[in-house]
């Protein structure tokens, strides 16, 4: 309904902006809290900080060891996403191009993983990770995220590859390229749009996951941001200003990345899930 800007549009604009303001109330409460000293918190819970104090941020950064948590989160997220892109696209290349009973069965098998709740295998997997000596390691987490996110990744890649004409690869193969070369030089570059979607969806999920790193990394010194924040908040539970500063600091990196890439993130989410 992209008609001109009419009085009705103006009313709608006001309603939507009012909705956004109400929507942002919790964020306002948190951010102002982080800039207040304890006295201001008690006396003026909702007014803007006056004067603003940044003392809590330094303390929160230190107490939650956010620096090393950010490094851990980055390492785990980047490695897992790379593994997912490589393994997922290779598998999808086979599943999309071969019309055999085997490839169809494998495709269905991967799809099952999308609705299989991870809770069912949670305890045996914990044992397995422990037996493999991967408890508390980066490798264990990367293996876990790769496995758990592969069904969705394979699903997205397979759908996309099916829409590509087979001629490109056939030409490369007839020219004497191996399948791996054809994939690396011809197919993979063509997958760029869906690779962007796969990257965004998986990175957001892995970066934000809380339960698995709590279970597998707790006490190892390699905890990710959500786990450190969880421990930090539970430790300083009564010091609202400090807790708020910690939450702001922990959420800031992903929000900054999101604001820079928001166009691609939003498009990636919608196109990736359109099915």
């Amino acid at each position, binding site marked *: 309904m*992209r008609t001109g800007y009419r009085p009705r549009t103006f009313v709608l604009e006001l309603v939507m902006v009012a909705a956004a303001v109400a929507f942002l109330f919790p964020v306002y409460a948190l951010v102002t*809290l982080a800039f207040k000293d304890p006295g201001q918190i008690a006396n003026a819970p*909702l007014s803007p900080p006056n004067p603003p104090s940044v003392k809590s941020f330094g303390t929160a950064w230190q107490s939650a060891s956010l620096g090393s948590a950010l490094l851990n989160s980055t390492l785990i997220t980047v490695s897992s996403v790379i593994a997912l892109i490589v393994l997922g696209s290779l598998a999808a290349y086979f599943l999309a191009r*071969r019309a055999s009973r085997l490839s169809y069965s494998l495709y269905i098998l991967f799809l099952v993983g999308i609705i299989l709740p991870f809770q069912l295998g949670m305890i*045996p997997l914990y044992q397995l990770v422990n037996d493999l000596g991967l408890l508390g390691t980066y490798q264990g987490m990367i293996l876990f995220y790769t496995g758990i996110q592969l069904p969705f990744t*394979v699903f997205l890649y397979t759908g996309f590859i099916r829409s590509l004409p087979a001629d490109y690869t*056939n030409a490369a193969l007839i020219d004497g390229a191996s399948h791996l070369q054809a994939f690396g030089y011809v197919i993979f570059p063509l997958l760029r749009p869906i690779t962007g979607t796969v990257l965004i969806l998986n990175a957001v999920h892995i970066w934000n996951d809380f339960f698995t790193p709590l279970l597998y990394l707790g006490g190892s010194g390699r905890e990710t941001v959500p786990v450190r924040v969880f421990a930090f908040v539970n430790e300083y539970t009564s010091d609202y200003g400090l807790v708020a500063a910690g939450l702001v600091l922990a959420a800031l990196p992903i929000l900054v990345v999101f604001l820079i890439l928001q166009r691609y993130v939003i498009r990636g989410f919608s196109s990736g899930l359109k099915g």
Partner: protein
Amino acid sequence: MTAVMSPPVTPVPPPVRRVGRRGGIAPPWLFAAPALLVYALVMLYPSIVGAGSAFTDWSGVGEQRSFVGLANFKQLLHDDQALGALRNTLFLTVAIVVVQNGLGLLLALGVHTTIKSRMVLRVIFFAPVVVSPVMVSFLWKYVYNPAPDAGLNAALNAVGLGSLRQDWLGNPSLAIWSVAFTVIWQCAGYSMVIFLAGLEGVPQELHESAMVDGAGTVARFRHITWPLLAPAVTINVMLSTVGGLTLFTQIIAMTNGGPGYATDTLSTVLYKQAFVFGKFGYSTAVALVLAIFVAAVSFIQIGYLRSRETAA
């Protein structure tokens, strides 16, 4: 275009590469092997072991376990905490599916217009999606602070609605709504983005010709937009259903299942049974019930919603 070429002039060796029915030369299955291996190791194998141990009295430590048949499931039927958790799970799922998607649709319709702030509003409404649920939970835990002069209570007081102040997370009948609202606040933008993608696909000409025929906003929404949004509805409903059924982080971070068992879900119960009480066999029985729920609901929804899509 197939890989079968015109008769060669000179004899050539028989093709060694398999030709797929899609008309391409198919890559060997080894391309799928690494992914399959990792997927099987991390998801399939543990899930099968998990499903199997639901019929044992495994404590989780060591190999000691014996087959107990359906005893865990019988126990589940008489476990008030687990039954309450099942009720809570279903309640949360329905509340989240209906409100989150309803709100997401309204937001999408609102920002899919000529209003000047539409791009900024999209970013604002979507932003909570990229923040970790554990952090969003703590943020809302402050908003729900029981103190009369903090968070939501302070805001109610400030606008003269002080009589509505509540102990949002401490009141057993209110706490589950408070948790649901947090999830809805975080995920409404997710639904919005998927609906927006669906709205982009609604041909403008249909609306124009309907307007010429005198159809109002409501009629055009009912007869054009809504039917054409069917695929977006399918995806949104499925995603929020699975999300609601497996809700865990927000509950652990905000209420830990309390007060009492008022906000326990199947996920938190199976977690507590396993890691707090050491009853792994029983815990996996709860997990199996959860898995069956998720699978059954997904299949019913796929069947129903897909038929709606093709009918549209």
